């Protein structure tokens, strides 16, 4: 996978929000790469900037209050941030689609399911679609997401559907256009465990079958463990660690990743850890140096002043923490 050209490359992305009484310096140089056909996870506590990253990547960041202060987002080598609205709409909705946490918010309550599909499919096919073709494609899309009786379902309104069905419809819509990249922002968070499990399994199978790349954003580590190939851990607007999923779970290096993994209650028992003390910093005055230093139990002098660079500890396993810097490496392990 590594030798292929990346599909999406987020480079040193910095995004601020200008709000009443200050500037929230949220994203502080995010780097994230997705290769064709790859499943990538992005985890971190609520408020660490996951949705902001995704919205910026899709060029749907609300401006104002949002401001992209720096960085680039390369989709197949072309910078999305520099594209004209027309070029952008050729990419977004056709090659790149999204699923949101709250399926109800993504569906328009006054249209039935077929009417929801119409603009999506039309946009993807540059309007060259007859109503019949739309209908046929919508039926196919609903079959993809294992919904029974698609004909009847197409006439239903969002409120007539259960939460799980709505999310399936959203997945169906997002994949109906056969995009190359799907960004799913907390797709199961609003659902019950049994339904979340079904939705994730379905999403996973479908993405595999269609060979779509996916960025799965979530605050729940369990959700990504069984799904993604590579995992990014985000803290306060920085990627603090990235590694192949199993490796990250078996050997988390960044103190934040370790804290997160430790905090998840295990089905095998063993008690509940204290978690990570403190909370996400106030983005109007983020801590200098490593943004995690205020909560870190291994904090060193340098952490307070200088932002740690990414250290590649192993092939594909990078961590932004001085514990793994050249000087510290032997001492820390």
């Amino acid at each position, binding site marked *: 996978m590594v030798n292929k050209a990346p599909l999406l490359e987020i480079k040193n992305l910095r995004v601020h929000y200008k709000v009443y009484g200050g500037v929230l310096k949220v994203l502080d140089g995010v780097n994230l790469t997705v290769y064709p056909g790859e499943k990538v996870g992005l985890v971190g506590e609520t408020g660490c900037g996951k949705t902001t990253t995704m919205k910026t990547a899709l060029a749907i960041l609300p401006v104002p209050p949002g401001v992209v202060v720096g960085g680039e987002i390369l989709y197949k080598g072309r910078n999305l941030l520099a594209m004209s609205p027309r070029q952008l709409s050729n990419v977004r909705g056709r090659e790149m689609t999204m699923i949101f946490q709250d399926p109800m918010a993504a569906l328009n309550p006054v249209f039935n399911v077929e009417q929801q599909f119409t603009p999506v499919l039309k946009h993807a096919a540059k309007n060259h679609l007859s109503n019949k073709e739309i209908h046929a494609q919508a039926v196919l899309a609903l079959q993809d997401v294992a919904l029974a009786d698609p004909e009847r379902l197409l006439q239903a309104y969002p409120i007539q559907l259960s939460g799980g069905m709505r999310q399936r419809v959203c997945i169906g819509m997002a994949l109906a256009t056969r995009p190359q990249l799907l960004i799913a922002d907390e797709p199961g968070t609003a659902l019950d465990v049994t339904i979340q499990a*079904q939705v994730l399994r379905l999403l996973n199978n479908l993405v595999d079958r269609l060979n779509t790349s996916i960025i799965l954003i979530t605050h729940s580590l369990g959700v990504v463990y069984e799904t993604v190939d590579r995992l990014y851990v985000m803290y306060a607007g920085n990627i603090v660690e990235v590694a192949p999923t199993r490796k990250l779970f078996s050997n988390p290096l960044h103190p934040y990743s370790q804290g997160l993994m430790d905090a*998840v209650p295990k*089905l095998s028992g*063993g008690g*509940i850890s*204290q978690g990570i003390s403190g909370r996400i910093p106030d983005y109007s005055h983020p801590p200098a140096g490593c943004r995690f230093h205020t909560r870190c139990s291994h904090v060193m002098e340098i952490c307070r002043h200088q932002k740690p660079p990414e250290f590649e500890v192993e092939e594909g396993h990078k961590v932004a923490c001085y514990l793994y810097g050249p000087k510290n490496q032997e001492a820390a392990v």
Partner: protein
Amino acid sequence: MSEAILEVRDLKKHFVVDHIGTFRRQPVTVRAVDGISFDLQAGETLGLVGESGSGKSTIAYILAGMYRPTQGRIHFRGLDLFSENGKRPLFLKKEIQIVFQDPGSSLNPRRTIAQNLAVPLQIHKPDKNIMRETLRLLELVDLPAIYMYKYPNMLSGGEKQIVAIARALATDPSFMILDEPTSALDVSVQGKVINLLMRLQSDLDLTYLFITHDLSLMRNIATRVAIMYLGKICEISKGSEFFQNPQHPYTQMLLSSIPVVSKDEEKLKPAKMIPTGEIPSPVNIPPGCSFNTRCPKKMDVCFEIDPDFVEISRQHFARCHLFGQTQKQG
């Protein structure tokens, strides 16, 4: 450990949500809780698990005295919680306290933490020094004393929930109902709240009814676990046994749905049970076993007869035709 402090027998709560029909108006009822019995031993933590809409909060609210049950009896230390004449005496309100799910709405946003904490103190400890009591409470839950004069919006979600716990402790209760106290919090914060609750339980001899939808969490804290589905308990047993030897098909489905993070945990998941379907509306509960719409092991009898709650091994009960005598009738 042996004395039962709470006995719930055949508890039902039906809500009338609407009426249908033009002339003879028929009430539409939600059977939120539909015949539940359990005991709670002093000092234990009974975990109550189920998908949303299964009636967990309704049980909590009935125990806390927010609703009267439609049917059934609840005895707390031998006293009927819902006697004929209605009002719950003050000393019972003191003994039973609740922590709610949503930390955002648990505290009055226009009053300081001290003022929020003072509400139960003024009612239940009118002769004590409120200031000293407030400080004692904050110390009890490890919050700095200066938090007294903060407003709730200056606190993080976890801190708000800790203040809500302190407020529940203000009356020196012996029984606490915890309705998903950490489900609105990040995992990184959850640990602090859970550990606090566990420490308080042993320090203050508290009995917990701990409601959650997170089975992994339950595994680590509950002495006994009860699984609820559509207003009924389908399985109840000792915590350890529960996870090693789940019996009811719904329990197995729940366990196999849990997102896990290690190989050890994967082994505990019943691999053959693939989650399917969604919880039906509690307005139209399916006849027979209410789980029959999703159950992979369903039999003909499941569509006709509601299974009994039977003891399948010591202290391990389940409601399913796979166990017990009712199987024969099918």
